[in-house]
């Protein structure tokens, strides 16, 4: 319990560091976001209007006042107003995009982890055998592909040439989001290729990780003892080897969340998928500071949350951490 509390304190501290950095970085950069809006009116604004726009971007008052008001806004999930889709609030764009990214990355990461880990278990258990000598090199090779190349290849082959899958979007334009089977099916259909492109480049990592940890464990005394006890192959494999080898995998899973969210950026661009990455690219192109800032914060937060979840999972799964 103490362990969890310590971790919570750590993550809260990390979150505040992130918020603070997120506050200062754009202010160190030349120009401020409101200047862009003000400039676009080409001098047709009076002093009061300019002041109002500046206030809405939090660029009035002293640094300390600005900081406090920024922290307050973050706490209220108020990330200001988008400069590009003015006057749409940033948070609604952000959460819309984040939902779709979560669909993509969530499905991809789950399948990549399950498939890769199962293949790793199988390869390690029969190491040097047919499965291991064929799939281990192949999966390592796939793991070395960049997401961009795989996404483009899939898009070209299955969307453009064969036309089995749609050219973009998260769902057909005629449908409005609801929980019907029809809509969910439609979403899955649109997500297939993007998910596949993330899956293909990531499951090899899980395969390799699981295989290596398993092989190291195979020579441990407790595994040899388990075999000597005449336990079934299955039991030794899962309860005495995979059970222990999964622990470092869970830690890597948390670490990979940030990486995958970043990688989804390219995938979403290729498949014209309305996720966080797609919005971020647009935001960068048009200097939508408030969106970029909010997106960075969201990424940081999701990495922190993922790490926190993996800490909890580790405590639940590893009794050695449960002391105190």
């Amino acid at each position: 319990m103490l362990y969890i509390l310590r971790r919570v304190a750590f993550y809260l501290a990390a979150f505040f560091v992130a918020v603070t950095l997120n506050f200062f970085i754009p202010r160190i950069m030349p120009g401020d976001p409101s200047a862009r809006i003000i400039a676009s009116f080409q001098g047709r604004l009076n002093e009061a209007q300019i002041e109002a726009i500046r206030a809405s971007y939090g660029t009035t008052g002293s640094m300390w006042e600005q900081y406090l008001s920024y922290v307050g806004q973050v706490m209220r999930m108020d990330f200001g107003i988008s400069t590009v889709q003015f006057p749409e609030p940033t948070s609604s764009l952000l959460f819309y995009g984040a939902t779709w990214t979560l669909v993509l990355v969530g499905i991809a990461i789950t399948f990549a982890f399950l498939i890769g880990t199962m293949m790793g278990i199988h390869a390690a258990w029969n190491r040097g055998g047919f499965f291991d000598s064929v799939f281990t090199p192949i999966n390592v090779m796939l793991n070395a592909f960049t997401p961009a190349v795989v996404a483009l290849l899939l898009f070209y082959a299955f969307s453009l040439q064969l036309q089995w899958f749609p050219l973009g979007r998260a769902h057909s334009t005629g449908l409005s989001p609801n929980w019907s089977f029809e809509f969910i099916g439609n979403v899955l259909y649109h997500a297939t290729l993007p998910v596949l492109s993330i899956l293909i480049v990531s499951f090899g990592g899980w395969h390799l990780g699981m295989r290596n940890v398993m092989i190291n464990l195979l020579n441990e005394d407790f595994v040899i003892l388990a075999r000597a006890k005449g336990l079934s192959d299955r039991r030794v494999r899962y309860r005495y080897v995979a059970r222990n080898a999964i622990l470092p995998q869970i830690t890597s899973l948390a670490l990979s969340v940030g990486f995958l969210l970043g990688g989804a950026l390219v995938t979403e661009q290729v498949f014209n998928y309305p996720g966080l990455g797609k919005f971020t690219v647009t935001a960068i192109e048009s200097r939508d500071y408030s969106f970029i800032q909010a997106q960075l914060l969201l990424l940081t937060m999701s990495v922190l949350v993922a790490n926190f979840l993996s800490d909890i999972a580790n405590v639940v799964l590893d009794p050695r951490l449960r002391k105190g």
Partner: protein
Amino acid sequence: MSSDRALLEVRNLTVDYVGEHSIARAVNGIDFDIREGEAFGLAGESGCGKSTVAFALARLTRLPGLVSGGEVRLNGENVLKFDKARLKAYRWNEVSFVFQSAMNALNPVIPVAEQITDVIETHNPGLGADGARARAEELFELVGIPPARLDDFSHQFSGGMRQRICIAIALALNPRLIIMDEPTTALDVVVQRDIIEQIVDLKAKLGFSVLFITHDLGLMIEFCDRIGIMYSGELVEVAPSEAILTNALHPYTRALGNSFPPLTGPRLRMEGIPGSPPDLRSLPQGCRFAPRCPRAMDICRVENPELRLYPEHRSQAACHLLN
């Protein structure tokens, strides 16, 4: 309490370690018996093949190790020829294992109870979860650990307690032979003493045989009925344990005995054994101990002596000096 009836007969057992370009014969055709109710010891320097023998007896040899010849007979059945089903029954029902390091012999992330009950349930499916649990509690009592601690994890126990748990696991199915591969090496001397006394008690109560492996010759002499001395993959002497120090036939046994200081009596300057054991990939011709033997003769460098029985000493030895 040991009878003369052999429980396990090892004949011409040969184990190789297969490398990419070479083969190292770690165990070169050894013969010995383990009698019913007997504690049989295997002693020798590191790398002499004693653990390799133990692993081969339990059919635990894995590549690059390879049992390339010989027989291990249990009541006339050749253990080395067992099929999968017979092997499963043989393991733990007839032969169980206690490993050197109690630290690593238990899975750290599953409760200790499960590591006892799984072997009971695997071999006695009829017993059920409750029956297995009851037996696990009984076993904990037997080795002197409160059954309430069954649900703890291995890191919550001291080294000595972990080794007791390993012994409890080894006893789970009342095996006829327990192979103990350096069961006390990782423990401090006081705990060592406790563990050994406990093994002696349990052995008297339950009547199993023990194959005991250690390089602690003193401990072995105290605990074992008979001792086999191994050198470079061969048995050079098999003798009643009281004869090992006082009436050793083989020069290597004598040298090994001289390497241990007596606790009482005048201080002595210890003699080690000069030289080191031969490389198994390029063995000397003749007796393997000859290059280090203070009394080597010409024939020793030509012909490898065979293990022979010398009835007047009740010992077997392989040395040209005795002929």
